[in-house]
């Protein structure tokens, strides 16, 4: 039974289901409803099939390798290599796509009649298939092909809602950035090909000892930039906060939840697997980038009042946290501490899984809110928990998980990351020790700010009173949308409670990647599901913690209800409002909430404060009609990095184009003559 489920037929079946879903949707495009149901249903089936396949691959522990070389094209082979790491990413992707597809059935309805649902279904399915192939391919060319298809499909999804020029711009930025990233990846692979003679990962890995160190370093840097663009590390992230909000929410969830993880996957695959052994400085570079991404990511998130941009910045933050694990693993394995490397990589993998779950949950619930209110501006929300309690609950679950509060899943992976860093402090020598101390401090700061940010996000969105008419008329999401969110919310809790078991599984995956034996086991799960790091350096028990967290409020409630206040009664009246009616203008806004933190970090964030007053009478300026304060944060990367480069290119372009193509035919003839003379001169040289 197990072998049947783990057979490649299942994978092919999954791809075929997605294919049928995509092509069928195009054929059924005349009917919006049919196209939607068809594509979503097949995406669901495909996700389930892929999930079953990947889980049974993990359970059986086998590796599946397949290779078909192309007759027409040299060097290209359709090579698949599904080891534990790939299977793990398959699991992550298919879980998220399953729930997003479910949610999509309801969410897509708003596009009926406005856009072609058939093409949405096609692109959606194509996008998922490409992602599945990205994490399973083991030939550089094949990988690049599916990688670009993934980028293209997601570009079309980002620009799907094309009537809004902002979305078109976001799509442009996204595809340009990702294409530049691909150019770097291409160069990295070609460099490897030139020195190993193949694009196949296995061949490259085998030939690695013969590759000179400076080539490996170049490949590392090129790949770091290339995959860093996709993963959204700072300062290559600028597409991310633009593109994620633009896409339909269930696609944003997939992009943010899993697509950016494909960048992480390839970093793990290359740096920790194919290119091993790696020098120490690789790990340090990754750690530095990780710190920048997580601290700046969360700070920018705090300044946002567009709910999806806020979530997008949190993706950058969480990518940073994952990279902390990856970077530590690189450092440890360079120092020969394979046990610690396994621990760090386990933390990274676990956070990858967790972030995929809670971030897609958050994007989906944000999507419901946007669907209900018609805006992404958090200042226009408020009080939504009364109108959409289910969505509010799920958003709360996601918020708790992303804020790393026990007993949800985010806590455990962040705890594990902390443990890896603590071990780094404890067991390394002077310089590396201080590096780890700094990194740990940065992670601690990040966690604290993340909590603040989600207090803001949840409070401003769901609590208090509606701040706009649309928010007053908000409605709960439809049943399928709730089902999609509920599934992910349950997973958040389940993965948290069952974290000790999952961590044990992930540890085997990490050991497989790092080719470390069983002796490299730092995480042990003792009876009673107590997770223990390095023989009792730190312990945590998820079930116990959960029990405690359920028990404590219960006990407190019992005591207060039956012990202390027996003779008192509770009455529910209106909120004390000082005698005047409460209005939404009295509430704290998103900007107001974040203001103090923004001002603390003003050196980094460069905020600008604008006061503007509009007068009743412009001449006398006595009676103001309205006053407004705008607190905005500049995008320093765009302003100081991307914009100048772009403008420089534009100037250069004008200069070259108008200089050369000046319309003067004499000049054109002159070019020919000059080139002729120069070349004749070169005859003597070459």
């Amino acid at each position: 039974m197990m072998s049947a489920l783990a057979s490649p037929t299942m994978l092919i079946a999954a791809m075929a289901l997605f294919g049928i879903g995509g092509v069928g949707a195009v054929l059924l495009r005349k009917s919006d409803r049919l196209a939607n149901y068809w594509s979503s249903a097949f995406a669901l089936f495909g996700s389930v099939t892929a999930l079953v396949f990947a889980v049974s691959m993990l359970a059986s522990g086998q590796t599946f390798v397949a290779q078909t070389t192309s007759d027409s094209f040299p060097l290209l082979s359709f090579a698949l290599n599904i080891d534990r790491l790939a299977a793990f990413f398959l699991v992550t992707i298919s879980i998220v796509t399953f729930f997003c597809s479910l949610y999509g059935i309801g969410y897509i309805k708003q596009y009926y009649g406005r856009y072609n649902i058939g093409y949405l279904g096609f692109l959606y399915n194509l996008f998922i298939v490409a992602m599945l192939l990205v994490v399973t391919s083991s030939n550089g060319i094949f990988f690049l092909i599916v990688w670009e298809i993934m980028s293209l499909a997601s570009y079309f999804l980002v620009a799907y809602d094309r009537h809004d020029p902002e979305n078109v711009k976001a799509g442009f930025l996204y595809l340009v950035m990702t294409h530049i990233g691909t150019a770097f990846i291409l160069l990295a692979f070609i460099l490897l090909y030139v020195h190993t003679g193949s694009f196949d990962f296995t061949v490259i890995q085998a030939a690695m000892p013969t590759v000179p160190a400076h080539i490996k370093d170049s490949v590392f840097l090129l790949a770091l930039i290339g995959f860093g663009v996709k993963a959204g590390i700072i300062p290559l992230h600028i597409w991310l906060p633009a593109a994620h909000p633009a896409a339909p929410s269930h696609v944003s969830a997939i992009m943010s939840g899993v697509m950016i993880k494909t960048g992480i996957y390839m970093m793990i695959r290359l740096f920790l697997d194919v290119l091993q052994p790696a020098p120490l400085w690789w790990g340090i570079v990754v750690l530095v980038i990780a710190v920048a991404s997580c601290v700046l990511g969360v700070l920018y998130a705090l300044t946002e009042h567009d709910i999806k941009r806020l979530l997008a910045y949190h993706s950058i933050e969480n990518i940073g946290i994952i990279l902390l694990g990856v970077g530590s693993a690189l450092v440890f394995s360079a120092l020969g501490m394979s046990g610690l490397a396994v621990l760090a990589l386990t933390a990274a993998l676990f956070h990858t899984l967790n972030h995929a779950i809670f971030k897609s949950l958050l994007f989906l619930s944000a999507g419901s809110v946007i669907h209900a209110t018609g805006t992404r501006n958090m200042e226009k929300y408020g009080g939504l928990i009364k109108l959409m309690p289910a969505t509010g609950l799920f958003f709360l679950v996601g918020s708790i998980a992303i804020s790393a509060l026990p007993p949800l899943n985010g806590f455990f992976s962040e705890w594990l990351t902390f443990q890896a860093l603590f071990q780094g402090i404890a067991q390394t020598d002077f310089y590396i020790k201080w590096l780890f101390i700094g990194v740990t401090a940065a992670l601690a700061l990040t966690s604290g700010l993340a909590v603040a940010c989600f207090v803001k996000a949840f409070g401003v969105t769901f609590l208090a009173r509606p701040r706009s008419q649309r928010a007053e008329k908000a409605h709960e999401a439809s049943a399928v949308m709730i089902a999609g969110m509920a599934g992910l919310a349950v997973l958040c809790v389940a993965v948290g409670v069952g974290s000790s078991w999952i961590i044990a599984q992930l540890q085997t995956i990490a050991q497989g990647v790092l080719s470390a034996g069983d002796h490299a086991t730092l995480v042990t799960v003792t009876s009673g599901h107590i997770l223990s790091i390095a023989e009792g350096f730190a312990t945590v028990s998820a079930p116990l913690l959960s029990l405690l967290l359920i028990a404590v409020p219960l006990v407190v409630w019992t005591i207060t209800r039956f012990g202390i206040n027996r003779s008192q009664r509770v009455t529910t009246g209106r909120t004390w409002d000082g005698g005047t009616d409460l209005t939404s203008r009295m509430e704290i806004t998103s900007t107001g909430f974040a203001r103090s933190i923004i001002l603390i970090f003003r050196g980094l964030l460069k905020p600008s404060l604008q006061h503007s007053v509009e007068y009743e009478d412009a001449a006398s300026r006595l009676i103001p009609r309205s006053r407004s304060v705008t607190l905005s944060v500049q995008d320093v990367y765009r302003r100081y990095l991307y914009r100048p480069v772009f403008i420089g290119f534009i100037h250069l372009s004008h200069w070259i184009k108008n200089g050369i193509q000046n319309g003067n035919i004499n000049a054109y003839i002159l070019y020919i003559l000059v080139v002729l003379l120069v070349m004749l001169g070169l005859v003597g040289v070459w």
Partner: protein
Amino acid sequence: MQQLPELEVIGSALQDNVRRLFKGSLAIRQIDTGSDNATEQELAALTNAYYDIERFGIHFVPSPRHADMLLVTGPVTRNMAEALKRAYDATPHPKLVVAVGDDAIDGGIYKGSYAVLDGVSQVIPVDYQIAGDPPSPLVIMQSLLAILDGAKKAPKQKGQS
């Protein structure tokens, strides 16, 4: 400055009552329902250095949520009626409502005006009244003493209802 001898006497009696009834601290929320501010002057005088009512355990609080007692002044203008009702609702049980000044009792000099509702009792149930236009601080203190003397068991019973 010469202290009134009665002040200390009334004060310590008040303090005993406050200690006995309110575990040493009586929180008062004062509500101005459109008063001419005469009564406010007198109430404000209670907290000045001369009377310094806080030393007897009585203090004015900014929110009815914290109050044991509402001191309502003014004839209750139409605009303030709703606010008064809400303040009353916002005060937790058990609570005492005291109308201070003639205006608050029945409208006083404003009685019959189209703009006022002629007294606090028209809007919320009033437990006690302190007459005078305005009552002097000492009168207020004496009245409070009388109220607390009379309310030995009453607050608790009201709370049960």
